C-alpha cells in the first residue's frame, strides 16, 4: 500500500476506539455533561504492573490519531508519528501510548456536532464551554476505565502541553513525568487577540446561525477558513515563511487584481479550504476559549510557583527559539516556577527555525532530548 510499515518505526495500522461515559461530568463552567463518548487510540502494550502508560494530549486542531495509519486510508498518518512508534523517542515497544480526542472535539468524541440526548438534535450553541481542567478530568476517567492508576508520562505540545501541566496539578499522584513542549503558562493579550479575531471570523459568518448551523445544512466555511489562515500565520516564523514562500509569485508577474498571486496567499487559502472541510466551527470556538482561560496561577493571585507547589511529577520543558506564539520566555516562566519549588525539571531551548510548529517537526536535537528523557523513565 505504500504506507509506512513497522520496520520504519511506525506502529502500523491502528483502529480508534470509543468509550462511553454515563456518569455526569461537572464542568468548570458550572454546566454538567450528562453523558459523553470519548474516542481514543492506543499503541504498544500495557505491562502487567500497568506502569508504562503514556498519555498524549492534542493541541488545537489535532486528534486522538497520534501515530500509525488507517487500513482504509494509509495516507492518514498520526500527527505525532515522527515522535511515537517502535524505536522512536516515545518508544511503543516500551510504553503503552494513548491518544485521545478531547471532549468538545470533532474527531469522534462528543462535541457540538453530536446529538444532545435532551433534544435529539445536535448540541450546537448549547454545547458547554470546556476547559483544560475539564479535559484532564475526562482523561482521568478514561485512565480509570483502562485500569491505569498512574501515567509514566503525560506528553503534549502547545495546548497539549497545558494539559500535561494541568495533569500534575489536578492529579499529582497520577503522573510521574510531564513533558511540556512549546507551552505557555497562560495566554498573553496578543495570543487572546489572535483567538478573538478567529472567533469573530466564525461567528460573523452568515452561515454560523448562532452556532446552530447544522439545522440549516450549512457550515460557516468562510469564517473557518479565515480562522485557520490566521492561525497558520502564528504557527510559522517569519524566517520559515520567507524560506518557504518568500515573495514568489505563482505566475511570475503582478496581475493587478485580488486573486491569488503570491505563493503564500495560495498556501494560506489551501490550508484554510482544507481545514474548513473537516473541522467543526463550534469546536474551534471552544478550543480557543479553553486556551484563553488556561491560567493555573489565577487561583493563586497570579503566582505560578504557588500554583505548581503541589505538583509531584518530574518535568521536561522544551521550547523553540523561533516560536513567537509561545516564545521561549513563556517556557522559562514555567521553568522558573518549577525551580522555585525545587521540583525536578530539565529545560531544553531548541534552536529551530520553524516557529511554533517546530514541536511537530523531526528535529534531531529536540527528538534526542525527548528520547533520552523517555529512556530514563522506561520501567
Amino acid at each position, binding site marked *: 500500500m505504500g504506507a509506512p510499515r513497522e520496520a520504519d518505526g511506525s506502529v502500523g495500522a491502528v483502529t480508534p476506539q470509543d468509550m462511553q461515559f454515563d456518569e455526569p461530568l461537572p464542568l468548570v463552567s458550572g454546566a454538567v455533561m450528562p453523558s459523553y463518548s470519548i474516542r481514543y487510540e492506543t499503541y504498544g502494550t500495557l505491562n502487567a504492573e500497568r506502569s508504562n502508560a503514556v498519555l498524549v494530549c492534542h493541541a488545537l486542531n489535532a486528534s486522538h490519531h497520534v501515530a500509525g495509519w488507517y487500513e482504509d486510508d494509509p495516507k492518514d498518518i498520526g500527527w505525532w508519528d515522527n515522535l511515537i512508534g517502535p524505536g522512536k523517542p516515545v518508544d511503543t515497544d516500551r510504553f503503552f501510548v494513548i491518544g485521545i480526542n478531547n471532549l468538545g472535539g470533532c474527531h469522534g468524541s462528543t462535541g457540538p456536532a453530536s446529538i444532545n440526548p435532551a433534544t435529539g438534535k445536535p448540541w450546537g450553541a448549547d454545547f458547554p464551554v470546556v476547559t483544560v481542567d475539564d479535559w484532564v478530568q475526562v482523561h482521568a476517567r478514561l485512565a480509570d476505565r483502562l485500569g491505569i492508576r498512574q501515567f509514566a508520562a503525560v506528553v503534549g505540545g502547545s495546548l497539549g502541553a497545558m494539559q500535561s501541566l494541568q495533569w500534575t496539578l489536578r492529579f499529582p499522584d497520577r503522573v510521574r513525568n510531564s513533558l511540556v513542549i512549546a507551552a505557555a503558562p497562560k495566554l498573553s493579550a496578543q495570543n487572546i487577540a489572535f483567538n478573538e479575531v478567529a472567533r469573530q471570523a466564525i461567528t460573523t459568518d452568515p452561515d454560523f446561525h448562532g452556532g446552530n448551523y447544522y439545522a440549516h445544512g450549512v457550515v460557516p466555511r468562510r469564517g473557518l477558513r479565515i480562522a485557520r489562515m490566521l492561525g497558520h500565520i502564528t504557527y510559522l516564523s517569519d524566517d520559515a515563511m520567507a524560506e518557504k514562500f518568500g515573495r514568489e509569485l505563482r505566475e511570475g508577474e503582478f496581475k493587478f487584481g485580488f486573486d491569488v498571486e503570491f505563493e503564500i496567499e495560495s498556501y494560506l487559502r489551501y490550508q484554510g479550504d482544507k481545514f474548513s472541510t473537516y473541522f467543526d466551527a463550534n469546536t474551534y470556538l471552544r478550543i480557543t476559549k479553553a486556551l484563553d482561560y488556561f491560567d493555573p496561577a489565577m487561583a493563586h493571585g497570579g503566582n505560578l510557583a504557588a500554583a505548581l507547589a503541589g505538583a509531584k511529577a518530574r518535568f521536561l520543558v522544551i521550547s523553540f527559539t523561533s516560536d513567537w506564539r509561545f516564545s521561549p520566555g513563556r517556557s522559562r516562566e514555567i521553568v*522558573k516556577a518549577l525551580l522555585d519549588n525545587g521540583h525536578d525539571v*530539565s*529545560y*531544553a531551548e531548541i534552536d529551530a527555525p520553524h516557529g511554533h510548529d517546530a514541536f511537530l517537526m523531526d528535529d534531531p536535537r529536540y527528538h534526542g*532530548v525527548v528520547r533520552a528523557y523517555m529512556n*530514563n523513565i522506561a520501567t
Partner: protein
Amino acid sequence: MSIPGNGNGNGLPMRSDFDAIAQWVRPGSRVLDLGCGDGSLLRSLKQTRNVTGYGVDISDDNVLACVTNGVNVIQSDLEAGLSGFESGSFDYVILSQTLQAMKHTERLLREILRVGREGIVSFPNFGYWHARLQVLGGTMPVSRDLPYQWYDTPNIHLFTIEDFEIFCRGHRLRILDRVVLTAGRRVTFAPNLLGALAVYRLDQAHGAAAVGA
C-alpha cells in the same frame, strides 16, 4: 551555538577539582552547577552527598548528556545572568573551570552570590610556573592542562591566584576556603607559582571591612 568553556571542555584534567568541591558540599544541600557539562559533578554529588539541584549549560550536546545522565539541566546562557533563579535559593552555586571563559566576570560572580549562599569557583592558574616560563620564552602558555593556542582558546580572561584574591578583596567577596591543585595533588607552598588549578569557596562579605584570605 555552543560557547566553548561554558561546559567542561576547558582542557584541565577531567575535573580534578571535583574532590575538593565534594568535600565542601554539605550532605542534602541544594546545588546549582553553572557550566555543568555532562552533569557528572552533579551526579557524583547526588550519589555521595545526596544533594538536589540543577545544572546550567548552553550547549545542546551537554544538555542532552545531562538528560541522558538523569541530571536536571536548564539550558541557558550564563552571560545573560541568572535571572531565572531566585535569590538565596541554593546552598551552593558552583562555577567549575568556567570563569576564565566568561565575558561578564563581575556580574556573574555577583549573581552567583545572589542566588547561592556560598559560591564555589575553580579556575586554571595562569601564574603557574609552567605558564610563566612560556610567557618568558615569548609565547602564550599552552600545556596539557591548557591545550589551546592563543587564537582558538575559549579562555578570554587569563588571571592568577593573586589576581583573583585581589579581585575578591576589591569586590567584598569573602574567601572561606581555598584548595590549590597540580596534577590532582594539593599545593600548599607558593601556590601562585606551583599550583595549576585553584578552587575557592566564597560568600558575600557583610559589614564594612571586606575580608581577605
